[in-house]
């Protein structure tokens, strides 16, 4: 007998139970080997197999196992119309937040700039301050301000500093490292400037989304901004990562004695805790060439280790292409709901 499954790119395939079992074993062992963490137990692998082979199109958790569901990317999925997975409905960001609150049943929401990076927000901070003021009058749920640290915007040709990739290619290693360190200083300064201005008008918190997308210097800047914001304001801080492994583009940057390059989710969260992060969002990237049994097992293994290592709530990232979800812009609900159940009931996450 064969069961419907999907590849990591969302393509529908059929697999036998034995094939799925082998994929689950290979996926969890891959995560265990890379992260030096425990693989899923035989019982957990069997449970994941049951979830994947469930004959129903969509699945859900048992009553009592529900988890908190939060959102990143702000309202861009509603009003975004620039090829970034938004559906282009011409409503205001305020309306988008209320739609999420009152129609989608979300537990928290975000305000975000259409570019969704911190740097472009700086020149329009007054606009963002007044928008969050209006949102705060009408929204009942917790509303964060969300954006990406996006260190890449600080390098030539988008920013003032040398491009590390170009410097490395030119053999100028010292120049490449210096550019990243200077960019991190500026990104740290910009994130703090923006969030302190938003705190001044009543913003409740920040979501640093896709942290470390530009490597270890990006992660460092965000940790430093978190530390300063927790020291000087009452903002709550959520930190969502970009990948399961911090890319060491710099390679030697440390935060409080821990080298950031190469950290996996169960190690990332301990550094985030030291900086003062309140809620942490681990990521495991989807391999589009492997089936979703392999991807889901791998993601659940990484995230379970993170949940167990953490002293703060863990909200796993489960958008398209991460957290056991297919890398497809409109992911099929059969796989999304299976991944959702697996994260809630095997990894025991505190939220999504």
């Amino acid at each position, binding site marked *: 007998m064969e069961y419907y499954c999907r590849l990591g790119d969302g393509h529908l395939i059929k697999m036998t139970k034995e094939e799925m079992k082998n994929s689950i074993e290979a996926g969890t062992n891959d995560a265990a080997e890379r992260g030096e963490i425990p693989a899923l137990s035989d019982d957990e692998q069997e449970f994941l197999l049951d979830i994947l082979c469930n004959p129903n199109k*969509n*699945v*859900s*958790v048992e*009553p*009592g*196992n*529900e*988890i*908190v*569901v*939060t*959102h990143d990317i702000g309202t861009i*999925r509603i009003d975004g119309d620039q090829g970034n997975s938004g559906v282009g409905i011409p409503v205001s960001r305020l309306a988008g937040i209320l739609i*999420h*609150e*009152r129609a*989608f*049943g*979300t*537990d*928290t929401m975000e305000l975000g700039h259409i570019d969704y990076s911190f740097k472009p927000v700086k020149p329009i901070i007054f606009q963002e301050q007044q928008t969050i003021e209006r949102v*705060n*009058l*009408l*929204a*009942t*749920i*917790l509303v964060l301000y969300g954006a990406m640290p996006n260190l890449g915007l600080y390098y030539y040709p988008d920013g003032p500093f040398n491009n590390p990739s170009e410097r490395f290619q030119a053999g100028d290693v010292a120049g490449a490292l210096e550019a990243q360190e200077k960019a991190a200083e500026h990104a740290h300064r910009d994130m703090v400037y923006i969030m302190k201005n938003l*705190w001044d*008008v*009543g913003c*409740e*918190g920040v979501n640093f989304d896709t942290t470390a997308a530009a490597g270890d210097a990006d992660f460092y800047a965000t940790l430093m901004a978190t530390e300063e914001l927790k020291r000087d304001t009452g*903002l*709550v801080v*959520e930190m969502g990562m970009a990948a399961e492994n911090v890319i060491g583009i710099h390679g030697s940057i440390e935060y409080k004695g821990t080298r950031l390059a190469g950290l996996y989710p169960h190690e990332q969260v301990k550094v985030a805790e030291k900086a003062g992060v*309140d*809620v942490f969002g681990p990521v495991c990237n989807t391999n589009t060439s492997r089936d979703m049994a392999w991807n889901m097992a791998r993601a659940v293994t990484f995230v379970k280790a993170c949940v167990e290592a953490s*002293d*703060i*709530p863990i909200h796993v990232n*489960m*958008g*398209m292409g991460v957290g056991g*979800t297919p890398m497809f812009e*409109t*992911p*099929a*609900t059969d796989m*999304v*709901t299976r991944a*959702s*159940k697996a*994260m*809630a009931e095997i990894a025991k*996450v*505190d*939220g*999504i």
Partner: protein
Amino acid sequence: MGMPIAHVMASGMQGIRAAGDLVARMQFAKRMRLKEAKEYVAKKLGVDVIELVDVETMRNLREELDIGVVTSVPGAATGIEAKARISELLDIPIAPVERLKSKMKLE
């Protein structure tokens, strides 16, 4: 639909339809893990943990406590009014509520 609604239907606590927003607030405000946050909110509401996601229970209770409901009800607290009542109920500061108090010179 593929992500936000699928996750909420598969494993979500349903925000202000039930009590998901309140549990989320405790996670962020006090770094409570899921179990602790659910127990804290259930105790404050005087319900069993399982009832936090029961829409029938929570709809009536939210209306009675006047902490915001998902549909429009004339006279019911919404937005900043609901947040002010939630702040008091959960015993946590909520930044825009603190700002309102400051503007009114209440504290």
